[in-house]
């Protein structure tokens, strides 16, 4: 086994210091080392998008990065978006618009769109679809996800 590497990563605002295998994936680090299981893994090679998290504020696929690459960086996962009592407008809209069924893709979708909405406060359908192309959903047929993103954007713009 390879020699472990010490890393310091800020996840959801909290600093974690861990000693990890150099080949440990960032997704496994988040799930197994930190116990933040809201981040899912569905393909382990960057296709399905369920493992999407923010890396220094940008959405990335955490299964395509190593934990050691996050040393000194800031990561945000779905657990940072909102809580049941204080939901992010996107979370609220996903619930209301039935934008999820099995829900396995949902955290990845949310992390993709929470970022997208910051850049596109008034998105068109086309822009939403373009942004969603990297996140797979096998249940919903996507339409309600588009609707939820639109609703959240409207509410956020209205604030």
């Amino acid at each position, binding site marked *: 086994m390879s020699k472990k590497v010490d890393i310091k990563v800020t996840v959801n605002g909290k600093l974690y210091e861990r000693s990890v295998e150099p080949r440990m994936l960032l997704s496994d680090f988040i799930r197994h080392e930190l116990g933040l*299981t809201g981040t899912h893994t569905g393909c382990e090679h960057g296709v399905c998008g369920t493992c999407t998290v923010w890396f220094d504020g940008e959405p990335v696929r955490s299964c395509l990065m190593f934990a050691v690459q996050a040393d000194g960086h800031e990561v945000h996962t779905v657990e940072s978006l909102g809580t049941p009592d204080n939901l992010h407008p996107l979370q609220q809209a996903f619930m209301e618009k039935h934008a999820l069924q099995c829900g396995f893709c949902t955290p990845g979708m949310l992390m993709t769109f929470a970022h997208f909405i910051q850049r596109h406060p008034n998105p068109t359908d086309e822009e939403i*679809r373009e942004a969603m192309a990297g996140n797979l959903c096998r249940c919903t*047929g996507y339409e309600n996800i588009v609707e939820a993103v639109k609703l959240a954007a409207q509410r956020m713009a209205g604030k």
Partner: protein
Amino acid sequence: MSAIGHSTVRVDASDKVTGRALYPGDINLPNQAYMKILFSDRPHAIIREIDTTQAEKLPGVLAVFTARDVPNNEYGLGIPDQPVLCGPGSNKLYADRVRFIGDQVALIIAETEEIAHKACKLVNVVYEDLPIITDVLEAKKGDAFLLHPDRGSNVFGSYRIRKGDVEKAFAKCDVIVEGTYTTPAQEHAYLQPEAGLSYIDEEGRVTVVVAGQWAHKDQEQIAHALNLPNEQIRVIYPAIGGAFGGREDMSVQIVLALAAWRLSQRGINRPVKIIWSREESIIGHHKRHPYIIRTRWGATQQGKVIAAEVEIIADGGAYAYTSPKVLGNATLMCTGPYVIENVKVDACTVYTNNLPNGAFRGFGGPQAAFAAETQMNKLADALGLDPVEIRWRNLLDEGDLLSVQSPLPKGVSIRQVVEDCALAAGWKKTANGWRRENAQNAATRAKYLKRGVGFACAFKNVGFSFGAPEQCTATIELHGDATIEKAILYHAGADVGQGAHTAFRQMAAHALGLPVEKIELRMSDTATSQNSGSASASRLTFMAGNSIKGAAEEALKKWHNEERPAIATFQYRPPATTPYNAETGESTPNFAYGYVAEATEVEVDIETGVVRIDKVWCSNDVGKAINPIEVEGQIEGAVIQAAGYTVLENFIQKNGQVLTPSLSTYLIPTVLDIPREVETRILEYPDPIGPWGARGMAEMPFMPLAPAVIAAVHEATGVWFNRFPLTPETVLFGLEEQQTA
């Protein structure tokens, strides 16, 4: 306000949007060990020897289990023809063989997943290869090498229907249309790969936390393989990340239970965890069956179909799974929702060394509908009739006899769904019958883009068919004193993502006359709930609804008799069905059906071969939409999955190996690949025995899409495709063949 008929928010929505919902892979217990499965890397071989010495010596390895460690080394939903672990030394004669690359050979349990993975590679398996049979037509031959020597034939299921006299009828036909149709395998591709956890619970039960579709059947199959009474096995379903039929059969359930049980016998009381990779998931669970359907239909000049002859050959793959039942459905549905006086069907399902095939949304219906509806569309073409008009002249009405010589149960609505869909998609009822307006004038954006519209319809059973035992049980507890303060519903029905538990709560509230907030759910644990039957066959709303309705009525009676708490358990049994008569197929196959019609408009790029589905109109009779937004979600999801099946998804196996074992090689639709618009049209013609009129509905919208798209592509290009997926290559080859012909 009534609790049903409204789009309430899912009961699990808050947990799912905050990342708090726990799927099997998200659950961890203190001191858990990790398991890896050594899969066969041969499609067909006898295992002469398994040497686990080196693996066991690796530091951190707790145990390696093989066939010798399985108390009763067989399982299977219908036929127990699959070893839990393949290899020598078990109690079953032919369990020493592997028959497909996903067969499981050894279990390695270790301190970490990484160690287990390393140890896997240290297990030395000596294989003696056997002939690999991947072609159903070869496998079917009398002298073919037998995959299961104890069964005497590779054909492991067959049905026949004989109604009237097809030969005489064909002699009277003005038009006869023949076709040989082939349908592809399809991967479920639910986003949550198989995972689970096992441990011995506080009452000594071997407990498995896993994602499945029928907790009590999982329990029964585990108990059978472990030679333990059912009560000593406990199955719990946490959040389930999609299923679509793909979790109907065992994946990690039995081996997880075996591992925890055998470890505990060695004095090691540790939970065991496993998570499959996507590749393991793809080789490790079954697929939708590829079918070959040869068929000949004849009609009179007036467009009345009077004869249909069909031969169905299904690739069952290495083990039975639900193949015979899937075939049963296809046998019934291969002549469509039509009155045909003379029918002859011969259907069989055959073992091969391909991955096993089994349940997948529609359960044999989509394959059958593809052949039946394409035949109908070709007949319309040959007779110069409109595709809706020809259907109108042949549709089943109440009292008409099916091919199996019994009528459909009351509440037949195929004519209503066809009418609704046709009107929505631009057809008109005229004095001369149904016609589509502007049929030939569809505008195209460019010369190389050809447009067309297609139509198809289908019927699908709700619940288990052909005499299979069918029931569903619910328990309701009413708590309070003067008034009911809360009601607790205990139910095993699996919420695989479709939203069943939300509908359960609504139905319980409605039946009890309480607001939904007063209903507490205790779901999917064999220790607290009774048998619900599976989340399949579009049955759960119908069956669970009736069980909840019955339990609520009885609990209320007890409540009024001053019982506190008032507790009632109710088992719902639908009207009995009967199996196919072996010679004629005569039977009462089902107790309820759902009906659906779809039209679609496509654009074909004749230079690149790309088929784009522009619009789908789907009219689905759901009886009563308990939660309309969930119903809509099922329709949209089914249509998109069917669109993937028809034009995109291409599961490739060669010589028993899977060439598309990942989501980068097996493509499912992204948001950019889906039809531009799906118009969902929910119709509510009540089922007389459905709970509050509800019918099953989740599979139906899958069924007519492929034949509707094929018909639209024909209108656009003049070419009939008898196979799909309509990948660009397939389309271009088809267009070229037409040019050279």
